[in-house]
């Protein structure tokens, strides 16, 4: 399939049912949308604890708290199609077509 072949070796951002997402290069896929990604980084939303701790440390003036997503390098993964909620392909802004 040329549509899918075009995604091979591209960086994809894949979101799973537990709201994590994974950014890696696509190496292989199939009918069930199982994706094999290399050089993958996993991104997690901060836990309630992290938000609580960040709130404790902030000065409270703006009523808002900023907490970064945690990320870690996990390398070679396969994401089963049935846990994927969203697939996005990375496109750098300003790159000529």
């Amino acid at each position: 399939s040329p549509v899918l072949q075009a995604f091979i070796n591209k960086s994809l951002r894949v979101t799973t049912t537990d709201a994590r997402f994974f950014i890696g290069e696509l190496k292989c896929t199939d009918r069930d949308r199982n994706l094999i990604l290399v050089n993958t980084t996993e991104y997690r939303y901060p836990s309630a604890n992290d938000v609580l701790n960040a709130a404790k440390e902030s000065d409270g003036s703006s009523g808002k708290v900023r907490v970064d997503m945690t990320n870690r390098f996990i390398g070679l993964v396969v994401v089963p199609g049935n846990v994927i909620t969203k697939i996005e392909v990375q496109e750098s802004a300003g790159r000529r077509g």
Partner: protein
Amino acid sequence: MTTFRDVTKEFLEASGKLNVGQLVQDPDFTLFQAVGALEIMDPKMDSGLLEPEYERFYAWAPRLPEEIIGIMDHLLCNEMAWHLGSALSQTLFANLYIDKLLSSSPMKLEQATFGTPPREPTPGQEIVLHVLQPYCLALIKCCGYMAKQVPSEHIYEEEDFVPQTYGLPLLQNIEHAEIVVLLDSALQWLVDNEAALSKELAAALRNRLKLRKLLLEDFAKDGESYHEGATSNWVENMLKILNYAGASNTMTYFMHFSARRPTPLPYSRSLLQSLLMKDMKVLGRMPLKCILFDDIQELAYPVKELLDPKNFEVEAPQSPKYQIAKRMDWFVERAGRSYIELYRNFCQNRARLRRILCKAVLDWDSLQVESEEIDSELRDFTNEAPVHTRDGPLYSFSLSSWVYHYKLRIMELIILLGFELDIFPLHEFDGMYWYLQFYLRTRSGHVDRMRSFVRTPPKGEDQEGYNKTISMLNYTLLEIAAMQDLASACVYLYCALNRRKVLGKPKTPYGDDLLRYEGRMKPFLSIGCPEVIAYDTFRSVVDNEEMEMKEILSYANDHIAEAKKQYQKMSKLPASIVRANICYDSFRTNVNCLLRSCVGVGVAIGVLSREDGPVEVTLDHGDKYHPAFPVPCIKVKS
């Protein structure tokens, strides 16, 4: 700045058009590479799933004494699982307490804690602080020693042991004494808080702390410490080799160590190698030359000019002593390497040992050829007087004879291991036992030859050495004869079973018997002597087609009776005769297993002689039998 474009719908549509099993992939990405991928959402592989729990872990949560005991026991199980070959990531490092201590990569003792302890700890927290934390630190220190020892010697990574520590330090920079202080304080805390704990709980905690202290003491010692005279709580048996009792006794120890059931752990096998050889010194005290010459002297008893230490002091090149020394130096370098390697090989697991020996035998074969040349050259300098026979003058060829003897032993061992490791199918037993007795028979003839060259020393000289060699050769002949009879009995027994068509030879449409024979004998095909015999000849000597069933079973009976007699004789010999000074118990156990195998085989022969009708065979690999001689249980088919 990177942006992402949502292609979910596109992807869904395009993938739906694929066939089941059809892949879209990078052509350079192979299945082999894919196998290592972590599967997301699989609880065993996806650690991201577990994260919240581990982040929320509060190490100072109060614990009951029973819980502390449970945690300590769980940790010990994890530690042993690692010793047995599982990875740290799946054992100790998956433990939240250990993780708490190590995840900050502590380089100093103050940095390795469960966190800032509570200012006013409750009793449930005190026990964590004063008992569990010291215990965990001591455990990690033990692991640090283990992680240093095992990879320092020949151990096959990933096969027996996973040394990977994932970049986490194991308190290597922290002094052993500091950890001992912690354990002692923990023990003291138990004493001070006796009233709060029941007798059993206090004893249970105390025993675990004491055990950990003893383990720490032992792990802190390495080959060097033992060479300097340290004693051990657990490895005293191994330390016996340091009381050097001669090369043959040492070799016997290593062979028995290797054959232990269950196989010794990677730590023991690595430590034994450290004890054997460190910094070019064997057993912490002698150069390789010493143990090598000791072995050659005892087995081959060469003319005294050959191993004379004075040869090495001579500097004049025209002196024959100098010429002898030059060649002996070559031999020490060349054969010494293979010889010490043999000891190391016995420190590998049995399957790996067999694989290594299949390669080693080729090395010993070429060593034999090279040594024969050196033997011929040496004759000119030692002025060896030949033994005169009908076929002309014969020379001892001491060095190559010694090499040949070891080569034959290795070939026999390869076959014995083949039986032990379940490599041969039942219908091949007759042929493989035939080769075993063939190599034994060859070695027997060779030992006879060697014995004929052992010259009585002149009166008053070296009577002890001479007696030692004669006793060694005589014992070797007995040992060979016993196994030869046992193997021969098996040849006839399995030949008979083959004739009764009960060994289930499978159909082999993809190869013929000749091809399989060459495959089976592959390790030995390039050996010049003894040669692998031609397939047709092999089949005729194994199948004995001219012989009647009655005759075959009768020969089997005779051989097994002889084998039994000889093993019974062997079991009564003293340790010094059987060269098992430091492993006599293992020797006795081994002979008893062989005797039981003899009995079992004898029974099988008896059943087969009595029952003419259809029978079925099951192989009994029980521990009471020798691993290379499992016993066929023959039952009448109902």
